[in-house]
């Protein structure tokens, strides 16, 4: 599952590149905003991938952790004017606690039932957070004037969170736990039969996954300055997109979700802005359509995702090049 070297040169290269990126180019705040969104989706996709891609627990309720993390930063601010920055401390932990509690219910379920159970749990949270106005300000949402106008500090914070998420996956997948995760994914009964405490390791996987999703949620509130239940607990916009980011990039690969995040954000923004103003306005409505087509294409032809089937893509491209040369 891993190279001999824990962190390869090119991985260090990517990190340094991401770190100095804003210094090399003078990006407009708009592009900076897109980079931040890419990183946010790297965190969500990668953390989903740990639970689903590596441990086989395909969650359709990742928004539950993202949302609870966001509200862990938002509720203390709303009730007691506590700085949302504390969310970076509470967000992940609150999500882990939620993950543990949810696990009691949903880890009794398998396959599609697990998917539906997590989906229902996230939906119940969405409705409850909309109703309990005394705690969450309900559908009015919580607003706070963000600390800085400049986006650079936010970029480095979310980059650190993204690096932490990827590093967590790399570390845990090298350890014994990682092998247990994989064996649970391949056959939970067999894993239990050889003495692996499946429920313990599923909880560990859920804990790590929910921690980083919760951190992403807390960051989202700090950065956006506005949350409401419909946004942070969104079934389609958070839970499903987290999955699609993983699928397009490649489930069960370290870098898959990161690539998926880049593709998703670039595609969405290219279309939403009608090819940055070069295409007619009606194109801007097509982004969900094209994204849907891409999902269908990837599942049909690249079931391992762009990263998982990279060799396949290369071969195809290579063959093409060869046949062109023959001509």
């Amino acid at each position, binding site marked *: 599952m891993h190279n001999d070297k824990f962190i390869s040169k090119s*991985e260090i290269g990517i990190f340094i590149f991401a770190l100095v990126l804003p210094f090399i180019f003078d990006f407009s705040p708009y592009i900076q905003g897109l980079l931040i969104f890419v990183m946010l989706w790297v965190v969500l996709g990668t953390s989903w991938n740990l639970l689903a891609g590596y441990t086989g627990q395909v969650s359709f309720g990742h928004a539950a952790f993202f949302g609870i993390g966001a509200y862990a930063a938002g509720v203390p601010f709303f009730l007691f004017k506590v700085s949302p920055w504390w969310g970076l401390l509470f967000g992940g932990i609150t999500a882990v606690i939620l993950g543990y509690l949810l696990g009691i219910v949903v880890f009794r379920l398998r396959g599609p039932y697990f998917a539906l159970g997590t989906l229902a749990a996230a939906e119940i949270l969405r409705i409850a957070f909309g109703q309990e106005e005394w705690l969450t300000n309900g559908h009015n949402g919580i607003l706070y004037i963000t600390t800085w106008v400049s986006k650079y500090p936010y970029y480095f914070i979310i980059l650190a969170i993204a690096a932490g998420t990827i590093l967590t996956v790399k570390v845990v997948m090298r350890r014994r736990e990682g092998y247990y995760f994989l064996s649970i994914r391949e056959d939970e009964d067999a894993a239990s039969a050889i003495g692996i405490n499946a429920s313990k390791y599923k909880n560990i996987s859920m804990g790590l996954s929910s921690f980083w999703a919760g951190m992403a949620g807390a960051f989202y509130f700090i950065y956006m300055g506005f949350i*409401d239940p419909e946004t942070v607990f969104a079934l389609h916009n958070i839970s499903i997109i987290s999955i699609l980011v993983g699928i397009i990039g490649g489930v069960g690969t370290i870098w898959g979700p990161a690539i998926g995040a880049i593709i998703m954000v670039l595609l969405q923004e290219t279309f939403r802005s009608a090819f940055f103003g070069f295409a007619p306005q009606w194109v801007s409505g097509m982004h969900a359509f094209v994204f849907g087509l891409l999902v269908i294409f990837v599942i049909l032809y690249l079931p391992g995702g762009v990263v998982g089937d990279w060799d396949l893509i290369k071969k195809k491209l290579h063959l093409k090049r060869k046949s062109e040369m023959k001509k």
Partner: protein
Amino acid sequence: MKFGKLLIALLSVSFLFSFNGCSKKETGPIKIGVILPLTGSKAKFGTMEKNAYELAKAEINAKGGINGRKIDFAYEDDTGKPDVGRAAAEKLINVDKVPMLAGGYSSSVTFAAAAVAQQYRTPFLVNTGSVDKITQPAAFNLTTKDGDKFYIYRMNPPVSEYASGLETMLSQVIKPKTVFLIHENTTFGTKGAKSFAKTAAKLGIKVLGTEAYSSGTVDFKPILLNAKKVKPDMVYMISYVMDAAMLMKQARELNFQPKLYVGAGAGFTMPAFKENAGKASEGVFSATLWHQTLPIPGAKAFYDNYIKKYGGDGPDYHGAEAYSAAYVVANVLKRCNGNYSKENIKKALDKTDMMTAFGPVKFTSYGEKIHQNKMTTYVVQWQNGALKLVWPKNLANAPIYYPIDYKKIWK
């Protein structure tokens, strides 16, 4: 890691976009950003407002534009979501480098976008977002004395004042003793219900109950039953168009006949409401901010020209708000004397005092609000399939149909 290269390649592509800033020509059109929901569930209203902006733009430019330069609106789709609205505001300010924002439809989206405008010190003329706090500086960590630091201006009345016209009609004509409130569970709905409860207390009307629902509900009968059980004189509803129609249709099926049904604007004035509710729409009152038959110069002309250009059922108050906001923008820019800096535009906004097709516009301070245009609101009623202006009496184009004979109109 081969795809490391891919990552770098992809990031390098983004490098190209970093040059996508725009160079400004001093003689080209003056571009103002407009944030509206052009896709998603609120797209119908967003599109109506966009059409109204475009109509106004064509008229303004035909009459010489802004001191010789043309005016142009850069539209950004907020899709009805607060986070997208924020991103849209940031893009307009940073990429398109507009000196001023306008638009703002849903309350929550407008508020989120207003926070961005305030942060970047960019004047924002709100024309529809109606939650009270948008023009309350306290919501932005400012006080009412900070007018010079506060960049948000609002042309439409806040939701707490939507019913001011209705208030006088109720106290002078109908005099109901009890009311039941039904509202959708959004910012607009909950705030509207709360402020109407206050109004009711002032008028001595007892609130018998409040029920919230989520938009898209199929079966409103449980809610309506709870209302029917307590026999209110009046039912007050805050709903968008299709929920409004479902509510009235099912109220008719239940034979629930309070003395009057009143809608709080929003969906109840739309032609689609009447179309879907059919006979159940008859006799329903609604608070409204505008009606084409009002004796305001330009109101009827706007209504007719809109239909001429876009066809369909014609605009309601949302269209009038957007159309007039475009004229306010033009008026403000004309008074900038060629210097279109944000500060200069803000100064011109402060001094606004003009007449529009929506009514007089002047930004004043009162209570907790600053930069708020204060205006009267009206009451309309569906009579024989047409929306009639029934209040205030001196402006009405039809008498109030009351008491309501449900046997006759629901047949």
